[in-house]
Protein backbone atom coordinates (compact mmCIF):
# COMPACT_ATOMS: atom_id res chain seq x y z
CA UNK A 1 0.00 0.00 0.00
CA UNK A 2 1.40 3.39 -0.97
CA UNK A 3 2.06 5.98 1.68
CA UNK A 4 2.45 3.71 4.70
CA UNK A 5 5.35 4.48 7.00
CA UNK A 6 8.23 2.42 5.66
CA UNK A 7 9.47 1.41 9.11
CA UNK A 8 6.05 0.56 10.50
CA UNK A 9 7.20 -2.59 12.27
CA UNK A 10 10.06 -0.70 13.91
CA UNK A 11 7.71 2.06 15.00
CA UNK A 12 5.33 -0.45 16.53
CA UNK A 13 8.19 -1.79 18.63
CA UNK A 14 8.52 1.69 20.16
CA UNK A 15 5.08 1.35 21.74
CA UNK A 16 5.19 -1.20 24.55
CA UNK A 17 1.40 -1.44 24.94
CA UNK A 18 1.06 -2.89 21.46
CA UNK A 19 2.44 -6.15 22.87
CA UNK A 20 -0.54 -6.36 25.20
CA UNK A 21 -2.69 -9.50 25.10
CA UNK A 22 -6.34 -8.98 25.95
CA UNK A 23 -9.02 -11.31 27.34
CA UNK A 24 -9.29 -14.50 25.34
CA UNK A 25 -5.67 -14.16 24.18
CA UNK A 26 -6.43 -11.59 21.50
CA UNK A 27 -3.68 -9.13 20.63
CA UNK A 28 -4.59 -5.48 21.07
CA UNK A 29 -5.96 -3.79 17.94
CA UNK A 30 -6.00 -0.18 19.12
CA UNK A 31 -8.24 1.91 16.91
CA UNK A 32 -9.07 4.62 19.44
CA UNK A 33 -6.17 7.02 18.91
CA UNK A 34 -8.37 10.07 18.35
CA UNK A 35 -9.51 9.51 21.92
CA UNK A 36 -5.99 9.16 23.25
CA UNK A 37 -2.78 8.00 21.61
CA UNK A 38 -0.41 5.37 22.90
CA UNK A 39 3.04 6.37 24.19
CA UNK A 40 6.43 5.42 22.80
CA UNK A 41 9.07 4.10 25.18
CA UNK A 42 11.16 7.24 24.79
CA UNK A 43 8.39 9.39 26.29
CA UNK A 44 8.00 7.06 29.26
CA UNK A 45 11.76 6.80 29.74
CA UNK A 46 12.27 10.56 29.59
CA UNK A 47 9.70 11.06 32.32
CA UNK A 48 11.15 8.30 34.47
CA UNK A 49 14.68 9.59 34.06
CA UNK A 50 13.56 13.01 35.17
CA UNK A 51 11.68 11.66 38.19
CA UNK A 52 14.55 9.45 39.25
CA UNK A 53 17.43 11.87 38.72
CA UNK A 54 16.42 15.49 38.26
CA UNK A 55 13.10 16.06 39.97
CA UNK A 56 12.67 19.50 41.57
CA UNK A 57 10.33 22.41 41.31
CA UNK A 58 11.19 24.91 38.57
CA UNK A 59 12.00 28.61 38.37
CA UNK A 60 11.91 29.04 42.11
CA UNK A 61 14.69 26.60 43.00
CA UNK A 62 18.29 27.73 42.51
CA UNK A 63 19.98 24.45 43.35
CA UNK A 64 21.35 21.99 40.83
CA UNK A 65 18.23 19.85 40.62
CA UNK A 66 16.16 23.00 40.32
CA UNK A 67 18.31 24.25 37.45
CA UNK A 68 18.13 20.90 35.71
CA UNK A 69 14.36 20.82 36.05
CA UNK A 70 13.93 24.38 34.87
CA UNK A 71 16.16 23.76 31.89
CA UNK A 72 14.34 20.57 30.94
CA UNK A 73 10.96 22.29 31.28
CA UNK A 74 11.96 25.32 29.21
CA UNK A 75 13.64 23.09 26.64
CA UNK A 76 10.29 21.32 26.31
CA UNK A 77 8.72 24.69 25.55
CA UNK A 78 11.32 25.21 22.82
CA UNK A 79 10.51 21.82 21.36
CA UNK A 80 6.79 22.43 21.36
CA UNK A 81 7.37 25.85 19.78
CA UNK A 82 9.42 24.15 17.08
CA UNK A 83 6.72 21.49 16.58
CA UNK A 84 4.14 24.10 15.59
CA UNK A 85 6.75 26.58 14.29
CA UNK A 86 5.55 29.24 16.70
CA UNK A 87 6.79 32.73 15.82
CA UNK A 88 8.01 33.18 19.43
CA UNK A 89 8.65 30.49 22.01
CA UNK A 90 7.32 32.72 24.80
CA UNK A 91 3.93 32.59 23.11
CA UNK A 92 3.68 28.91 24.03
CA UNK A 93 1.72 28.40 27.27
CA UNK A 94 1.45 25.03 28.97
CA UNK A 95 -2.04 24.15 30.20
CA UNK A 96 -3.63 21.00 31.59
CA UNK A 97 -5.25 19.90 28.35
CA UNK A 98 -6.92 21.43 25.31
CA UNK A 99 -10.09 22.00 27.29
CA UNK A 100 -8.29 24.20 29.81
CA UNK A 101 -6.64 26.12 26.98
CA UNK A 102 -10.01 26.90 25.40
CA UNK A 103 -11.52 27.84 28.74
CA UNK A 104 -8.53 30.02 29.52
CA UNK A 105 -9.33 32.10 26.46
CA UNK A 106 -13.11 32.18 26.91
CA UNK A 107 -12.99 32.79 30.65
CA UNK A 108 -10.33 35.50 30.44
CA UNK A 109 -12.26 37.19 27.66
CA UNK A 110 -15.17 37.59 30.03
CA UNK A 111 -12.96 39.91 32.11
CA UNK A 112 -11.23 41.64 29.23
CA UNK A 113 -11.47 45.37 28.76
CA UNK A 114 -10.81 47.46 25.67
CA UNK A 115 -10.86 45.89 22.24
CA UNK A 116 -11.23 42.36 23.52
CA UNK A 117 -14.19 43.06 25.79
CA UNK A 118 -17.30 41.01 24.98
CA UNK A 119 -20.63 42.70 25.57
CA UNK A 120 -24.32 42.44 24.77
CA UNK A 121 -24.81 42.60 21.01
CA UNK A 122 -21.44 41.02 20.28
CA UNK A 123 -21.30 37.69 18.54
CA UNK A 124 -19.13 34.65 18.86
CA UNK A 125 -19.03 32.15 16.02
CA UNK A 126 -18.30 28.44 16.32
CA UNK A 127 -19.37 25.45 14.24
CA UNK A 128 -21.83 22.62 14.61
CA UNK A 129 -19.01 20.06 14.47
CA UNK A 130 -17.13 21.27 17.54
CA UNK A 131 -16.07 19.08 20.42
CA UNK A 132 -18.01 20.01 23.59
CA UNK A 133 -14.80 21.60 24.85
CA UNK A 134 -15.10 24.18 22.09
CA UNK A 135 -18.83 24.74 22.62
CA UNK A 136 -19.54 24.96 26.34
CA UNK A 137 -16.85 27.59 27.16
CA UNK A 138 -18.40 29.89 24.56
CA UNK A 139 -21.91 29.21 25.82
CA UNK A 140 -20.76 30.19 29.28
CA UNK A 141 -19.09 33.34 27.95
CA UNK A 142 -22.01 34.48 25.80
CA UNK A 143 -24.62 33.70 28.48
CA UNK A 144 -22.62 35.59 31.07
CA UNK A 145 -21.98 38.64 28.91
CA UNK A 146 -25.31 38.74 27.11
CA UNK A 147 -23.60 38.15 23.78
CA UNK A 148 -24.87 35.78 21.07
CA UNK A 149 -23.46 32.45 20.07
CA UNK A 150 -23.74 31.63 16.38
CA UNK A 151 -22.38 28.77 14.33
CA UNK A 152 -21.61 27.37 10.93
CA UNK A 153 -23.98 24.55 9.98
CA UNK A 154 -22.90 21.37 8.23
CA UNK A 155 -23.52 20.02 4.77
CA UNK A 156 -24.91 16.53 4.29
CA UNK A 157 -21.46 15.15 3.57
CA UNK A 158 -20.13 16.56 6.83
CA UNK A 159 -18.36 19.73 5.76
CA UNK A 160 -18.82 23.26 7.03
CA UNK A 161 -21.55 25.07 5.17
CA UNK A 162 -19.74 28.26 4.23
CA UNK A 163 -22.54 29.66 2.09
CA UNK A 164 -23.40 32.32 4.68
CA UNK A 165 -19.86 33.06 5.88
CA UNK A 166 -20.04 36.77 5.13
CA UNK A 167 -23.24 37.23 7.07
CA UNK A 168 -22.22 34.90 9.90
CA UNK A 169 -18.87 36.59 10.44
CA UNK A 170 -19.69 40.27 10.55
CA UNK A 171 -18.83 43.52 12.30
CA UNK A 172 -20.37 42.26 15.53
CA UNK A 173 -18.19 39.14 15.61
CA UNK A 174 -15.58 39.20 18.37
CA UNK A 175 -14.28 35.65 18.22
CA UNK A 176 -14.37 32.82 15.70
CA UNK A 177 -13.42 29.50 17.24
CA UNK A 178 -13.34 26.31 15.26
CA UNK A 179 -11.75 22.93 15.01
CA UNK A 180 -9.16 22.31 12.36
CA UNK A 181 -10.03 18.62 12.06
CA UNK A 182 -13.32 17.19 13.36
CA UNK A 183 -12.93 14.44 15.93
CA UNK A 184 -16.20 12.88 14.80
CA UNK A 185 -16.54 13.50 11.06
CA UNK A 186 -12.84 13.63 10.28
CA UNK A 187 -13.40 16.72 8.13
CA UNK A 188 -10.43 19.04 7.63
CA UNK A 189 -11.73 22.59 7.76
CA UNK A 190 -10.51 25.55 5.65
CA UNK A 191 -9.03 27.32 8.63
CA UNK A 192 -7.04 29.86 6.61
CA UNK A 193 -10.04 31.02 4.65
CA UNK A 194 -12.20 31.44 7.74
CA UNK A 195 -9.40 33.19 9.61
CA UNK A 196 -8.94 35.62 6.75
CA UNK A 197 -12.62 36.52 6.82
CA UNK A 198 -12.62 36.85 10.61
CA UNK A 199 -9.63 39.14 10.48
CA UNK A 200 -11.39 41.35 7.93
CA UNK A 201 -13.97 42.19 10.59
CA UNK A 202 -11.42 42.41 13.39
CA UNK A 203 -12.42 39.22 15.20
CA UNK A 204 -9.86 37.00 16.86
CA UNK A 205 -9.52 33.45 15.63
CA UNK A 206 -9.13 30.45 17.91
CA UNK A 207 -8.23 27.13 16.31
CA UNK A 208 -8.74 23.85 18.13
CA UNK A 209 -5.92 21.74 16.73
CA UNK A 210 -6.49 18.80 19.09
CA UNK A 211 -7.07 16.45 16.16
CA UNK A 212 -4.89 18.32 13.67
CA UNK A 213 -1.63 18.48 15.62
CA UNK A 214 -1.28 14.68 15.78
CA UNK A 215 -1.52 14.20 12.03
CA UNK A 216 -0.99 17.40 10.04
CA UNK A 217 2.23 19.41 9.88
CA UNK A 218 1.46 22.69 11.70
CA UNK A 219 3.54 25.64 10.57
CA UNK A 220 2.36 28.89 12.11
CA UNK A 221 5.31 30.87 10.78
CA UNK A 222 4.54 30.13 7.19
CA UNK A 223 0.87 31.06 7.51
CA UNK A 224 0.30 34.50 6.12
CA UNK A 225 -0.67 37.17 8.60
CA UNK A 226 -4.36 37.36 7.81
CA UNK A 227 -4.88 33.62 7.66
CA UNK A 228 -2.87 32.79 10.76
CA UNK A 229 -5.02 32.13 13.82
CA UNK A 230 -4.54 34.27 16.90
CA UNK A 231 -4.74 31.30 19.21
CA UNK A 232 -4.13 27.61 18.56
CA UNK A 233 -4.56 24.86 21.12
CA UNK A 234 -3.87 21.16 21.29
CA UNK A 235 -3.59 18.44 23.89
CA UNK A 236 -0.55 16.38 24.89
CA UNK A 237 -2.12 12.95 25.22
CA UNK A 238 -3.18 12.85 21.56
CA UNK A 239 0.34 13.54 20.23
CA UNK A 240 1.91 10.50 21.96
CA UNK A 241 2.56 12.63 25.06
CA UNK A 242 1.27 12.17 28.60
CA UNK A 243 -2.05 13.30 30.06
CA UNK A 244 -2.10 16.41 32.22
CA UNK A 245 -0.57 18.72 29.61
CA UNK A 246 -1.99 20.88 26.86
CA UNK A 247 -0.68 23.71 24.77
CA UNK A 248 -2.01 27.16 24.07
CA UNK A 249 -0.14 29.16 21.49
CA UNK A 250 -1.28 32.76 21.25
CA UNK A 251 -0.16 35.85 19.42
CA UNK A 252 1.71 38.00 21.91
CA UNK A 253 -0.53 41.05 21.46
CA UNK A 254 -3.62 39.01 22.27
CA UNK A 255 -2.07 37.29 25.26
CA UNK A 256 -0.74 40.59 26.57
CA UNK A 257 -4.18 42.17 26.27
CA UNK A 258 -6.01 39.36 28.05
CA UNK A 259 -6.37 39.61 31.82
CA UNK A 260 -4.82 36.76 33.79
CA UNK A 261 -6.75 33.51 34.22
CA UNK A 262 -5.49 31.76 37.36
CA UNK A 263 -3.83 33.88 40.02
CA UNK A 264 -1.00 32.47 42.08
CA UNK A 265 2.64 31.52 42.29
CA UNK A 266 4.86 32.21 39.26
CA UNK A 267 2.35 34.37 37.39
CA UNK A 268 3.11 37.45 39.44
CA UNK A 269 5.63 40.21 39.22
CA UNK A 270 4.99 41.49 42.69
CA UNK A 271 2.33 40.86 45.35
CA UNK A 272 1.18 42.97 48.24
CA UNK A 273 -1.98 42.36 50.23
CA UNK A 274 -3.50 45.35 48.45
CA UNK A 275 -2.65 44.49 44.87
CA UNK A 276 -0.50 42.49 42.52
CA UNK A 277 1.17 42.97 39.18
CA UNK A 278 1.66 40.17 36.74
CA UNK A 279 4.57 38.54 34.98
CA UNK A 280 5.11 38.54 31.22
CA UNK A 281 3.98 35.65 29.04
CA UNK A 282 4.35 32.71 29.19
CA UNK A 283 4.43 32.89 33.00
CA UNK A 284 1.41 35.19 33.23
CA UNK A 285 -0.78 32.22 32.30
CA UNK A 286 1.10 29.51 34.16
CA UNK A 287 0.07 30.01 37.78
CA UNK A 288 1.26 27.47 40.31
CA UNK A 289 3.55 24.54 39.85
CA UNK A 290 3.06 23.61 36.21
CA UNK A 291 2.83 20.04 34.92
CA UNK A 292 6.63 19.72 34.89
CA UNK A 293 7.10 16.03 34.18
CA UNK A 294 4.25 16.23 31.71
CA UNK A 295 5.80 19.11 29.76
CA UNK A 296 9.09 17.23 29.64
CA UNK A 297 7.25 14.14 28.42
CA UNK A 298 5.47 16.21 25.80
CA UNK A 299 8.81 17.60 24.63
CA UNK A 300 10.02 14.05 24.05
CA UNK A 301 6.74 13.20 22.33
CA UNK A 302 6.81 15.99 19.77
CA UNK A 303 10.49 15.27 19.19
CA UNK A 304 9.53 11.70 18.43
CA UNK A 305 6.85 12.81 15.97
CA UNK A 306 9.20 15.34 14.36
CA UNK A 307 11.77 12.59 13.99
CA UNK A 308 9.32 10.29 12.20
CA UNK A 309 8.15 13.34 10.26
CA UNK A 310 4.69 14.84 10.19
CA UNK A 311 4.54 14.64 6.42
CA UNK A 312 5.20 10.93 6.58
CA UNK A 313 2.67 10.48 9.38
CA UNK A 314 0.09 12.40 7.42
CA UNK A 315 0.70 10.24 4.34
CA UNK A 316 0.40 7.11 6.51
CA UNK A 317 -2.91 8.30 7.95
CA UNK A 318 -4.24 9.14 4.51
CA UNK A 319 -3.30 5.75 3.12
CA UNK A 320 -4.92 3.95 6.04
CA UNK A 321 -7.98 6.15 5.96
CA UNK A 322 -8.49 5.40 2.29
CA UNK A 323 -8.09 1.71 2.95
CA UNK A 324 -10.44 1.86 5.93
CA UNK A 325 -13.12 3.77 4.01
CA UNK A 326 -13.01 1.08 1.36
CA UNK A 327 -13.21 -1.72 3.89
CA UNK A 328 -15.95 -0.11 5.95
CA UNK A 329 -18.20 0.71 3.04
CA UNK A 330 -17.98 -2.94 1.99
CA UNK A 331 -19.89 -3.90 5.16
CA UNK A 332 -23.61 -4.11 4.37
CA UNK A 333 -25.76 -1.58 6.21
CA UNK A 334 -22.79 0.55 7.21
CA UNK A 335 -23.02 4.32 6.75
CA UNK A 336 -19.98 6.54 7.20
CA UNK A 337 -20.67 9.95 8.75
CA UNK A 338 -18.49 12.61 7.15
CA UNK A 339 -16.58 13.02 3.90
CA UNK A 340 -15.93 9.88 1.90
CA UNK A 341 -12.67 10.90 0.24
CA UNK A 342 -9.56 10.29 2.31
CA UNK A 343 -7.75 13.34 0.97
CA UNK A 344 -10.06 15.83 2.63
CA UNK A 345 -10.24 14.18 6.00
CA UNK A 346 -8.33 13.03 9.04
CA UNK A 347 -8.01 9.51 10.39
CA UNK A 348 -11.09 9.32 12.59
CA UNK A 349 -14.05 7.60 10.92
CA UNK A 350 -17.45 7.46 12.60
CA UNK A 351 -20.14 5.21 11.26
CA UNK A 352 -23.52 3.63 11.86
CA UNK A 353 -24.33 -0.01 11.32
CA UNK A 354 -27.96 -0.66 10.67
CA UNK A 355 -29.70 -2.66 13.37
CA UNK A 356 -26.89 -2.67 15.90
CA UNK A 357 -26.33 0.01 18.49
CA UNK A 358 -22.77 1.45 18.71
CA UNK A 359 -22.32 0.12 22.25
CA UNK A 360 -23.11 -3.32 21.10
CA UNK A 361 -20.77 -3.01 18.14
CA UNK A 362 -17.96 -1.83 20.39
CA UNK A 363 -18.66 -4.67 22.78
CA UNK A 364 -18.44 -7.35 20.13
CA UNK A 365 -15.29 -5.79 18.69
CA UNK A 366 -13.78 -5.59 22.15
CA UNK A 367 -14.38 -9.29 22.66
CA UNK A 368 -12.00 -9.72 19.72
CA UNK A 369 -9.41 -7.30 21.08
CA UNK A 370 -10.44 -4.41 18.86
CA UNK A 371 -10.69 -1.07 20.69
CA UNK A 372 -12.96 1.55 19.11
CA UNK A 373 -15.07 4.28 20.64
CA UNK A 374 -18.87 4.19 20.83
CA UNK A 375 -21.04 7.09 21.88
CA UNK A 376 -21.30 10.74 21.02
CA UNK A 377 -17.54 11.40 21.11
CA UNK A 378 -18.19 14.68 22.92
CA UNK A 379 -19.85 15.99 19.78
CA UNK A 380 -23.56 15.73 20.52
CA UNK A 381 -24.64 18.56 18.21
CA UNK A 382 -22.85 16.99 15.24
CA UNK A 383 -24.57 13.70 15.99
CA UNK A 384 -27.91 15.47 16.27
CA UNK A 385 -27.24 17.12 12.91
CA UNK A 386 -27.05 13.67 11.32
CA UNK A 387 -30.05 12.39 13.21
CA UNK A 388 -28.10 9.91 15.28
CA UNK A 389 -27.64 9.74 18.99
CA UNK A 390 -24.42 7.79 18.96
CA UNK A 391 -21.96 6.31 16.51
CA UNK A 392 -19.00 3.99 16.42
CA UNK A 393 -15.61 5.53 15.66
CA UNK A 394 -12.37 3.94 14.54
CA UNK A 395 -9.27 6.07 14.58
CA UNK A 396 -5.81 5.16 13.43
CA UNK A 397 -2.37 6.58 14.10
CA UNK A 398 1.23 6.16 13.07
CA UNK A 399 1.39 2.66 14.59
CA UNK A 400 -1.75 1.36 12.86
CA UNK A 401 -1.42 -1.35 10.20
CA UNK A 402 -3.69 -2.34 7.32
CA UNK A 403 -4.06 -5.75 9.01
CA UNK A 404 -5.70 -4.01 11.93
CA UNK A 405 -8.18 -2.38 9.58
CA UNK A 406 -8.89 -5.85 8.15
CA UNK A 407 -9.55 -7.11 11.67
CA UNK A 408 -12.02 -4.28 12.18
CA UNK A 409 -13.89 -5.04 8.97
CA UNK A 410 -14.03 -8.75 9.84
CA UNK A 411 -15.22 -7.84 13.29
CA UNK A 412 -18.03 -5.74 11.88
CA UNK A 413 -19.18 -8.51 9.64
CA UNK A 414 -19.10 -10.84 12.61
CA UNK A 415 -21.10 -8.29 14.62
CA UNK A 416 -23.81 -8.36 12.01
CA UNK A 417 -24.03 -12.10 12.14
CA UNK A 418 -23.90 -12.15 15.97
CA UNK A 419 -26.85 -9.78 16.12
CA UNK A 420 -28.51 -11.56 13.20
CA UNK A 421 -29.03 -8.46 11.11
CA UNK A 422 -29.36 -8.39 7.35
Amino acid at each position, binding site marked *: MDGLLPELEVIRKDFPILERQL*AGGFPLVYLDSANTSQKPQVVIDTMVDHLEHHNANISRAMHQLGSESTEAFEAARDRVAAFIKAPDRDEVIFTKNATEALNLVANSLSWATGDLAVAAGDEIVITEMEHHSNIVPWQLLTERKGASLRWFGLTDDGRLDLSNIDELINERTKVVSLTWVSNMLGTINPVARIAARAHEVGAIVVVDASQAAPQLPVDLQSMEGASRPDVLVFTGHKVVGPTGIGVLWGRREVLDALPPFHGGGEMIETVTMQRSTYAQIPHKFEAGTPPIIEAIGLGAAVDYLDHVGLDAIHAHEQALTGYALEGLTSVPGLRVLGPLDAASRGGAISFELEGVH*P*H*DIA*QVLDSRGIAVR*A*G*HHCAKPAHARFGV*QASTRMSSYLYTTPTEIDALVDGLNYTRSY*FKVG
Partner: protein
Amino acid sequence: MDAALDSLYQEIILDHYKHPHHAGLRGDPSAAGTAEVHHVNPTCGDEVTLRVHLADGVVSDVSYDAVGCSISQASTSVMTDLLIGKSVEEAMGIHQTFLELMQGKGKIEPDEDVLEDGIAFAGVAKFPARVKCALLSWMAWKDATSQTLSKENS
Protein backbone atom coordinates in the same frame (compact mmCIF):
# COMPACT_ATOMS: atom_id res chain seq x y z
CA MET B 1 -14.73 -15.56 22.95
CA ASP B 2 -18.35 -16.16 22.19
CA ALA B 3 -18.77 -17.58 25.67
CA ALA B 4 -17.79 -14.18 27.04
CA LEU B 5 -20.12 -12.35 24.68
CA ASP B 6 -22.95 -14.79 25.28
CA SER B 7 -22.73 -14.26 29.02
CA LEU B 8 -23.49 -10.62 28.33
CA TYR B 9 -25.97 -11.00 25.52
CA GLN B 10 -28.30 -13.63 26.95
CA GLU B 11 -31.14 -14.67 24.66
CA ILE B 12 -33.61 -13.06 27.07
CA ILE B 13 -31.84 -9.72 26.67
CA LEU B 14 -31.83 -9.88 22.91
CA ASP B 15 -35.53 -10.85 22.93
CA HIS B 16 -36.48 -7.88 25.07
CA TYR B 17 -34.28 -5.66 22.89
CA LYS B 18 -36.04 -6.74 19.71
CA HIS B 19 -39.50 -6.79 21.24
CA PRO B 20 -39.60 -4.34 24.16
CA HIS B 21 -42.55 -4.61 26.54
CA HIS B 22 -44.70 -1.67 27.61
CA ALA B 23 -42.88 0.71 25.24
CA GLY B 24 -44.27 4.17 24.43
CA LEU B 25 -45.50 6.92 26.73
CA ARG B 26 -49.02 6.54 28.14
CA GLY B 27 -51.39 8.57 30.26
CA ASP B 28 -51.41 12.19 31.23
CA PRO B 29 -48.09 13.32 32.67
CA SER B 30 -49.77 16.06 34.68
CA ALA B 31 -52.35 13.76 36.28
CA ALA B 32 -52.29 13.16 40.03
CA GLY B 33 -49.91 10.36 41.08
CA THR B 34 -47.83 10.80 37.96
CA ALA B 35 -44.32 12.01 37.29
CA GLU B 36 -42.20 12.09 34.17
CA VAL B 37 -38.39 12.30 34.11
CA HIS B 38 -35.76 12.44 31.42
CA HIS B 39 -32.46 10.71 32.16
CA VAL B 40 -29.31 10.64 30.09
CA ASN B 41 -26.15 8.60 30.29
CA PRO B 42 -23.72 11.49 29.80
CA THR B 43 -20.93 9.27 28.57
CA CYS B 44 -22.65 7.50 25.74
CA GLY B 45 -25.81 9.48 25.16
CA ASP B 46 -28.40 6.80 25.96
CA GLU B 47 -31.64 8.52 26.88
CA VAL B 48 -34.93 7.65 28.45
CA THR B 49 -38.11 9.59 29.09
CA LEU B 50 -39.98 7.66 31.73
CA ARG B 51 -43.45 8.19 33.17
CA VAL B 52 -44.59 6.59 36.42
CA HIS B 53 -48.19 6.39 37.59
CA LEU B 54 -48.88 5.45 41.17
CA ALA B 55 -52.38 4.71 42.49
CA ASP B 56 -53.24 3.58 46.00
CA GLY B 57 -49.66 2.70 46.79
CA VAL B 58 -49.31 0.58 43.67
CA VAL B 59 -47.19 1.14 40.57
CA SER B 60 -50.11 1.24 38.19
CA ASP B 61 -48.08 1.96 35.07
CA VAL B 62 -44.56 2.64 33.86
CA SER B 63 -44.30 3.88 30.31
CA TYR B 64 -41.29 5.15 28.40
CA ASP B 65 -39.63 6.39 25.29
CA ALA B 66 -36.00 5.30 25.14
CA VAL B 67 -33.03 5.33 22.77
CA GLY B 68 -29.98 3.25 23.48
CA CYS B 69 -28.12 0.01 23.25
CA SER B 70 -29.49 -3.51 23.66
CA ILE B 71 -28.63 -3.60 27.34
CA SER B 72 -30.36 -0.36 28.24
CA GLN B 73 -33.41 -1.14 26.10
CA ALA B 74 -33.82 -4.65 27.40
CA SER B 75 -33.32 -3.52 30.95
CA THR B 76 -36.10 -0.97 30.60
CA SER B 77 -38.43 -3.58 29.17
CA VAL B 78 -37.66 -6.11 31.91
CA MET B 79 -38.12 -3.43 34.53
CA THR B 80 -41.63 -2.59 33.41
CA ASP B 81 -42.55 -6.29 33.53
CA LEU B 82 -41.22 -6.49 37.07
CA LEU B 83 -42.62 -3.31 38.54
CA ILE B 84 -46.01 -2.68 37.00
CA GLY B 85 -48.70 -3.84 39.38
CA LYS B 86 -46.40 -4.16 42.39
CA SER B 87 -46.86 -2.10 45.53
CA VAL B 88 -44.44 0.79 45.73
CA GLU B 89 -42.73 -0.88 48.64
CA GLU B 90 -42.27 -4.17 46.81
CA ALA B 91 -41.08 -2.31 43.74
CA MET B 92 -38.46 -0.46 45.76
CA GLY B 93 -37.27 -3.81 47.08
CA ILE B 94 -36.92 -5.19 43.56
CA HIS B 95 -35.09 -2.03 42.56
CA GLN B 96 -32.64 -2.57 45.40
CA THR B 97 -32.12 -6.21 44.49
CA PHE B 98 -31.41 -5.33 40.87
CA LEU B 99 -29.03 -2.55 41.92
CA GLU B 100 -27.09 -4.94 44.14
CA LEU B 101 -26.86 -7.48 41.36
CA MET B 102 -25.46 -4.85 38.98
CA GLN B 103 -22.94 -3.55 41.48
CA GLY B 104 -21.82 -7.03 42.49
CA LYS B 105 -19.07 -7.29 39.85
CA GLY B 106 -20.56 -10.58 38.67
CA LYS B 107 -20.15 -12.24 42.06
CA ILE B 108 -23.80 -12.24 43.17
CA GLU B 109 -26.10 -15.14 42.40
CA PRO B 110 -29.35 -13.59 41.16
CA ASP B 111 -32.68 -14.58 42.72
CA GLU B 112 -35.04 -15.66 39.95
CA ASP B 113 -38.08 -15.45 42.22
CA VAL B 114 -37.51 -11.72 42.64
CA LEU B 115 -35.90 -10.72 39.35
CA GLU B 116 -37.51 -13.10 36.84
CA ASP B 117 -36.11 -12.16 33.40
CA GLY B 118 -33.86 -9.72 35.23
CA ILE B 119 -31.51 -12.55 36.14
CA ALA B 120 -30.28 -12.40 32.57
CA PHE B 121 -28.41 -9.25 33.55
CA ALA B 122 -26.13 -11.12 35.95
CA GLY B 123 -23.53 -11.25 33.19
CA VAL B 124 -23.68 -7.49 32.62
CA ALA B 125 -22.28 -6.93 36.11
CA LYS B 126 -18.96 -8.25 34.82
CA PHE B 127 -18.74 -5.40 32.27
CA PRO B 128 -18.33 -2.21 34.31
CA ALA B 129 -18.81 0.00 31.26
CA ARG B 130 -22.22 -1.53 30.65
CA VAL B 131 -23.58 -1.45 34.18
CA LYS B 132 -24.61 2.18 33.65
CA CYS B 133 -26.57 1.14 30.56
CA ALA B 134 -28.49 -1.48 32.54
CA LEU B 135 -29.23 0.95 35.35
CA LEU B 136 -30.31 4.00 33.34
CA SER B 137 -34.07 3.40 33.41
CA TRP B 138 -34.03 1.92 36.90
CA MET B 139 -32.52 5.16 38.17
CA ALA B 140 -35.07 7.12 36.20
CA TRP B 141 -37.87 5.03 37.73
CA LYS B 142 -36.61 5.69 41.24
CA ASP B 143 -36.34 9.39 40.56
CA ALA B 144 -39.83 9.61 39.09
CA THR B 145 -41.32 7.57 41.90
CA SER B 146 -39.72 9.76 44.58
CA GLN B 147 -41.03 12.82 42.80
CA THR B 148 -44.55 11.44 42.76
CA LEU B 149 -44.37 10.48 46.41
CA SER B 150 -43.05 13.84 47.52
CA LYS B 151 -45.72 15.59 45.46
CA GLU B 152 -48.36 13.53 47.24
CA ASN B 153 -46.92 14.34 50.62
CA SER B 154 -46.72 18.05 50.09
